[in-house]
């Protein structure tokens, strides 16, 4: 098993195609897109510490299965009530055994009925289908 305890901060990796689909699906001046773009600038410069991260649930009440992935509220460093968006990130190891977090999904954490949440989008990226509530 690789030694992946890592340092105090983690690098965030962004795939260009995924960024276009997840963030640029919002209009250029939409609050969510502006918040995501601002967060990316900070994360690319500083990375993220564990204090900003939370673990995703292995079995969420919405049917999502995201165990082993982590999440970050957007805008950064705001209390939950002021952070309606989120990044879902997958911890990954490259061929040299370096640990990073890769963006997998962006969106609203608790959207109104009829809109997929960031967690449902992440579930789809992982499992290839939308989650089913039990």
């Amino acid at each position, binding site marked *: *098993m*690789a030694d*992946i*305890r*890592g340092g105090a901060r983690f690098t965030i*990796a962004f*795939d260009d*195609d*995924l960024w276009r*689909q997840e963030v640029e699906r919002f209009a250029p001046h939409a609050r969510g897109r502006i918040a995501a773009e601002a967060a990316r600038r900070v994360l690319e410069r500083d990375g993220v510490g*564990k204090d900003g*991260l*939370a*673990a*995703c*649930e292995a079995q*969420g*009440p919405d049917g999502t299965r995201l165990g*082993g992935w*982590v*999440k970050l509220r957007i805008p950064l460093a705001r209390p939950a009530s002021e952070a309606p968006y989120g990044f879902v990130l*997958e*911890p*990954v*190891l*490259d*061929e040299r055994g370096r*640990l*990073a977090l*890769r963006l*997998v999904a962006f969106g609203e*954490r608790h959207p109104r009925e009829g809109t*997929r949440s960031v*967690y449902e*989008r992440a579930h*789809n*990226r*992982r499992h*290839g*289908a*939308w989650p089913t509530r039990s």
Partner: protein
Amino acid sequence: MQVTLTEPGIAGDYEVVENDGGRLVLERKLEPSSGELHERHGTRGLTDDEFEQAFGDLSREPGE
């Protein structure tokens, strides 16, 4: 069930998320998948043990 539409402008793979008496509701399949991202960038996900080692002390926020 998944279907493929070929009409220009909406072409792509879709998942049937609702079938109301033959009225289908489709949602576009999200690509790249996390697996495809691993292939593209030469990475792999963590094992359960590796995740616990690196992130086992993270807070969990139920109901999210």
